[in-house]
């Protein structure tokens, strides 16, 4: 009931703002746009308490509520009702999406203030929140798919928000199509689920799956297909190239969609379907490997980028890789924990970047920034908080969440831990590089930009501060065992995950091992920060010579030319195929045959008409021949 209102609020916001976007004045639009999300957030909190205090008898087993609205699609044995699930995982996602979403909306009031498409922006943002909420509250795969594709649509609309620029439109289109490629995997996975389990709703499917032995080929196939969907949505290798391009959209969009919520949909989906994944160890390995590979790969690229948003984009890809790695290692709670903390600090970082870009009058190249902390203290300080969190320094949230992931990985395989840890080091390096180049040292931009520099208005700094607090204190959500307090988040999510994690997918390490690993990584990270400080913190220009050889650096700078590879292999091939099919097969092949039939008839007619010579004698001759022929055949047959 409350849930429906939560969902309907942003939808209503979209409809109102969308319908009257020309006529509604900005202030009203801002109020509507932001307060729908605020309302949703407050209601989510209410739902949270409601859920906690409800007597156990009213829950279905494992503390989850399922209710359905009406039959959506029905044909034969296939029944897809509009159903929703409310359990701890949902509640967590609800709070994150609406909470962080609200702050970003608030920020956008300031950021998009000068934009003529103000109302349209909030309309799209509200629609996005609606679909995202639908995604996380869905009680069955198809309903989740509605939200899944819906957020893809909104992503398209928002990336291409400034639609007069065809480059931005290309980026939006690329995002949507890559998402769609993943969506096909999701769809096929759904089909397989239906033919295997006879239902598409979560609880029945998970229950039936629990009865199957681990490693069943069908389960592996299903989970792999669903993971393909996640790869597309959450920008893992090989479907990640859309995310850096997606930075073409306004920065709040990047914060909301491409850092905190949409891209985490893949992680959520895997976590939600944990019952299936826990029984498919092969897929889990694939997920872990993909995650780690992505994490490392993206981190390397991030190190060589100079656009502030691109660095953050690759960082997001990298962090998502960590989340998937955690999932692959069986650390479901860790993955979700990192999802939450990442939402906090990544949104914070993006919004901070937005403030910087705003203040710099549109400049995004960090090489032309510097010393910004003097003119933008709040932004700088919150940005520092976010950076520290991402790098994984205690006692910030990122430390706890990342550490949990690393520990889970180590339990799975020390090699994996090694790669992941390397990625973590790189994360620290590139983040602090960015921080130092942008906020420390002396200013390297134009004088005009220097004059323009100012701190952002309150409506923009307030969310930054809140998010910074969250980024700092978020660790409290799930402190590890050695601090003496039980991980609250783990306990909260336990009803959801314990169903399948009891099948010993998680590994437990001895406390001493934990301490050693933590210590080692911590020391290395501090070392990285020190290196970054030495190289970039003094405010010098980027040194001309680098440690890595020139060719490799150039390759990394150009993102390893993956985009170009895709263009060559996929896009050009497709265009060629289109032309080939059309011109050669259709025009010259099939159409020739069809037109040829007609032409043949005409030609035959042209030949046969010469029988009509007009000569009566000739006609009589033919007539007599004909009669003779009939007589002869009559006699013969």
């Amino acid at each position, binding site marked *: 009931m409350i849930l429906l209102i939560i969902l309907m609020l942003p939808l209503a916001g979209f409809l109102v703002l969308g319908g009257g976007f020309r006529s509604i004045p900005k202030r009203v639009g801002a109020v509507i746009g932001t307060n729908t999300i605020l309302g949703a957030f407050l209601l989510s909190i209410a739902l949270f308490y409601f859920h906690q205090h409800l007597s156990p008898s009213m829950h279905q087993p494992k503390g989850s509520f399922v209710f359905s609205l009406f039959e959506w699609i029905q044909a034969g044995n296939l029944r897809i009702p509009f159903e929703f699930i409310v359990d701890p995982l949902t509640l967590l996602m609800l709070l994150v999406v609406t909470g962080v979403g609200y702050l970003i909306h608030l920020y956008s009031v300031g950021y998009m203030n000068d934009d003529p498409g103000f109302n349209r922006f909030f309309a799209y943002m509200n629609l996005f929140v609606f679909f995202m909420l639908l995604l996380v509250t869905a009680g069955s795969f198809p309903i989740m798919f509605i939200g899944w594709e819906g957020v893809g649509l909104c992503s398209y609309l928002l990336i291409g928000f400034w*639609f007069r620029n065809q480059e931005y439109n290309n980026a939006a289109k690329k995002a949507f199509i890559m998402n769609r490629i993943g969506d096909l995997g999701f*769809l096929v996975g759904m089909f397989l689920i239906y033919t295997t389990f006879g239902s598409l709703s979560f609880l029945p499917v998970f229950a039936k799956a629990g009865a199957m032995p681990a490693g069943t080929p069908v389960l592996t196939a299903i989970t792999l297909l669903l993971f393909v969907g996640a790869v597309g949505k959450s920008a893992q290798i090989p479907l990640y190239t859309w995310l850096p391009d997606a930075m073409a959209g306004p920065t709040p969009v990047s914060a909301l969609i491409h850092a905190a919520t949409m891209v985490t949909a893949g992680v959520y989906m895997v976590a939600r379907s944990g019952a299936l994944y826990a029984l498919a160890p092969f897929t889990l390995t694939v997920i872990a490997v993909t995650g780690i590979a992505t994490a490392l790969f993206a981190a390397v690229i991030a190190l060589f980028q100079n656009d502030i948003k691109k660095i953050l984009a690759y960082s997001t890809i990298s962090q998502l890789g960590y989340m998937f790695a955690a999932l692959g290692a069986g650390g479901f709670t860790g993955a979700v924990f990192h999802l939450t903390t990442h939402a906090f600090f990544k949104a914070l970082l993006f919004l901070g970047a937005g403030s910087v870009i705003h203040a710099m009058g549109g400049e995004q190249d960090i090489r032309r920034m510097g010393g910004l902390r003097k003119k933008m203290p709040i932004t700088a300080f919150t940005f520092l908080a976010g950076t520290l969190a991402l790098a994984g320094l205690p006692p910030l949230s990122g430390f706890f969440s990342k550490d949990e992931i690393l520990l889970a990985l180590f339990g799975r395989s020390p090699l994996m831990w090694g790669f992941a840890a390397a990625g973590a080091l790189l994360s620290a390096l590139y983040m602090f590089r960015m921080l130092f180049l942008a906020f420390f040292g002396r200013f390297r931009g134009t004088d005009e930009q220097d004059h323009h520099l100012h701190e952002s208005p309150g409506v923009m700094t307030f969310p930054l501060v809140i998010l910074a607090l969250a980024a700092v204190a978020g660790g409290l959500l799930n402190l590890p065992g050695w601090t003496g307090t039980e991980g609250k988040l783990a306990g909260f999510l336990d009803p959801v995950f314990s169903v399948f994690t009891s099948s010993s997918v998680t590994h437990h390490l001895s406390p001493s091992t934990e301490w050693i690993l933590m210590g080692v990584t911590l020391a290395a990270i501090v070392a990285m920060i020190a290196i970054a400080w030495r190289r970039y913190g003094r405010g010098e220009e980027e040194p001309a010579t680098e440690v890595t050889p020139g060719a490799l650096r150039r390759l990394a700078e150009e993102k390893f030319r993956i985009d170009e590879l895709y263009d060559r292999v996929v896009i050009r091939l497709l265009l060629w195929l*289109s032309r080939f099919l059309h011109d050669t097969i*259709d025009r010259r092949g099939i159409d020739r045959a069809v037109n040829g039939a007609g032409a043949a008839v005409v030609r035959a007619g042209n030949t046969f008409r010469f029988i009509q010579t007009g000569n009566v004698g000739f006609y009589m001759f033919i007539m007599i021949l004909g009669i003779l022929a009939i007589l002869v055949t009559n006699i013969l047959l």
Partner: protein
Amino acid sequence: MLTILLILFPLALSLIIFFTKEKRAARAGALAGALVELGIAVTAFIRFRYVCRCELLASADWFSEMGISLKFGMDGIGLLLVLLTTVLTPVILFSASREKGERPPAFYALVLLMESALVGVFTSFDGLIFYVFWELALIPAWFICALWGGDDRIRITFKFFLYTFTGSLLMLAALVWVYVRTPAPHSFDFQWMYAAALSPREQAWVFAAFFVAFAVKIPVFPFHTWQPDTYATAPPSGSMLLAGIMLKMGVFGMIRWMLPICPDAVRLFTPWAMGLAVTGIVYGSVIAIRQDDLKRLIAWSSIAHVGLITAGVFALNIQALQGSVIQMVSHGINITGLFLAVMFIEHRTGTRSIAQLGGIARQAPRLAFLFMLMVLGSIALPLTNGFVGEFLLLIGLWEYSTVAAAVAGLTVIFSAVYMLWMYQRTMLGDAVPATENFADLSWREASLFIPLAVLVLWIGVAPGMFLDISVQDAVQVLNYLK
């Protein structure tokens, strides 16, 4: 009774309008008539759903010695298609009044005649009458395309006419053969034809004849080459009529006449038919990507979509069949909407070439929004009508063959590719010389889209109402195949 009224009313009105001299009166009369027709159809729908599921049969003898009777009725599937026809015809007529130059009364008369013929096809329960109305629909189509079409219209319309006519003759031959084989006394009545005793070899030939006839109409690869030219040359109303409704005759014919009459042959030849249909999906989608003419692009996309619908018919399970039915309706709506948007674009800029267009969204946000809605329905975004059909079709296909479904699923990706690219190049970006003075849609013009937009969302969010209507008859059809 209602059924007969549905057929005769537009027919009579068509004759009246044909002889009207006054253009405005003709136009108003046609529009009013189409709306009345819609009212009758909705009444039939309400009665069907809420009162009784009777088939609204009405029959009269015609040549009882020959076994030809005038038997009409609407079962679930027929009702849905009749609804589609009666909803789209007013939209088409209203849009025709916006086309370049005033249309003479004959035009409106022809559209109404076509409506009558189409309703006749969907409601005939007698084989020969089915054929009569099938051919009857071709006549106004010919005139509309040949008289008011674009470049090279005579040649292209002729090709379209001869091609489909050849197919129809094959169908006639098949119908007559089955008639001869019905239990004595011979009859064209559908129940008699279903009961005809056909040997497997006979079934194969009958199936082949039927299949070619319907395949040309739909069109299914490789019988499709008439379609892009015809859709591109036809006037906007013509394209909407052809693509929106007329091609559904082919699918309907398959479901109503082909499947129950030659079930063994269907089962035998399904792999081939499915192969052709699925090939058409990929083929059409890939070619659509590179098209420059807007109408041609939509035509090729239509080939892809109806390929999926046809594949669903041959998957022989309830999900796929229901998917086909609902997707027929959805496709009709979406493609009419697309052609409508293209009509406005061509009207205002004088060109259909994507290369010469761009930046329309800036000046015409209403058109941009409505066009986008139709595009989204076309690419099957969940909560639009296209998704319901596509999901059912794909899942039904999957139950038949995972490979077929996986290949057909590529349409999910490709449709996004060509549609979004087309939208981006025509609507987004900066204005170009051709679109500098693009006026946005007036409220009257935008209102043409409203019934379509409503249906896109209605069928997308609450398809149960429509699926319920056809489900029992779909199950019946499948029973014949046991």
